[in-house]
């Protein structure tokens, strides 16, 4: 059965992916305000005042939860427990440490594997 707006999770309410970045959350929140705020042409006559206020409060709550990392993580964990979100999510690639980046052998005759240039004399 189709879920009502109040039954949607916050990502569905804002039409964003669960891995949306902060700027995407802000953009989605702005777009939702454009649609649901009083005087909006898009939703003219679609909602009663009471319905509009309820939707706006849900949108506000969704935004405030998702825009803060800790609250978002707790919310995501709750979604995972409910089976609405996959537990495995892609993590950002590990940040390379400077030693790893600049680990270039400068010793005579010793070149790192795959080196394109001869080591300086």
């Amino acid at each position, binding site marked *: *059965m189709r879920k009502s*707006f109040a039954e949607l999770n916050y990502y569905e309410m804002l039409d964003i992916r669960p891995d949306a970045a902060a700027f995407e959350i802000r953009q989605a929140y702005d777009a939702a305000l*454009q*649609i649901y705020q009083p005087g909006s*042409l*898009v*939703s003219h*006559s679609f909602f*009663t005042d009471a319905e509009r206020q309820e939707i706006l409060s849900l949108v506000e709550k969704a935004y405030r939860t998702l825009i803060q990392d800790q609250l978002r993580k707790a919310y995501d964990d709750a979604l995972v427990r409910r089976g609405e979100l996959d537990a495995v999510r892609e993590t950002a690639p590990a940040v390379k440490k400077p030693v790893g980046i600049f680990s270039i052998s400068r010793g005579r005759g010793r070149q790192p594997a795959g080196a394109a240039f001869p080591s300086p004399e």
Partner: protein
Amino acid sequence: MAHIWPIGGGKGGSGKSFITSSLGRLSAGLGRRTLVIDLDLGAANLHTLVGVPYPSKSFSDFLQKKVGRLDDTVVETPFENLFLISGAQDPFDIANLPYEQKIKTLRAIMKLHYDCILLDLGAGTSFNTLDFFLLSQNGIFITTPEPTSIENVYRLIRSVYFRRIRYCFSVSQFKALEEEAIEQFGEGAFNKPECMMKVIERDHPESYRELQNDFNAFRFRLVINQLHKRDNAVLGLHICRIIEKHMGLGIEFTGNVSYDDHVHDAICQQVSFLDRYPYTKTAGELRAVGRQIFQPAGRQLMLQYV
């Protein structure tokens, strides 16, 4: 079987006839035998827009049994492959089409042999308009970026929804569903087909499945007409999003058609806008809308209500 596209919009003056005639022109230009039917009963003007100011035959000839088949009322237009069933010279009471004549008309339309049939429907939400709109799953809604027009298109969409639900139940059953929805969801529920669907799901699960299947099969489209530069270009997308999210009805935003004074000029000169002003932004947008609509539509299911 012909692909049928009913074109409605709720509000008068939103450009339904202009869009219908333009789409008819575009479809005919693709080499398809295209028929445009003026079902704006009592306010027919499609004949003026397709270059047939004084049609020799009209829809009422079929209703009054002056001809045996609806096909016999078809007239040619100046454009190759484009044909018209006109509503000109219809009697003054044509807007109050009786039920039997409506059913006769619906059945006759389904028997027509054309590649593409466009129905220009009247404004408002009369049962006749709704039943013509529900003849096909490919209805097109036209609205302008004004609160009055948007309100009317929402009302039309809800009415289409309710009318489809009504087909599944008797008058007394439908009334009972209305009362149950109001009791469960409050006074505002009379205006919300999604509330009635929740009651149907609980009390009539088989009918609910049938209705859901139909609603999922609808390929409704929305066109925003007469968009000014200062208007929001994503208005149509947002309207479709609201309908999908809050009514559970899928509707595809097909495109914007910009406001252009030349449309008025073309209508006054009684010439085709696409032919007279082909390089305007509006003409380009009409062609883009036509491409979206006339892409291979695949198998078209006809709603068998008659």
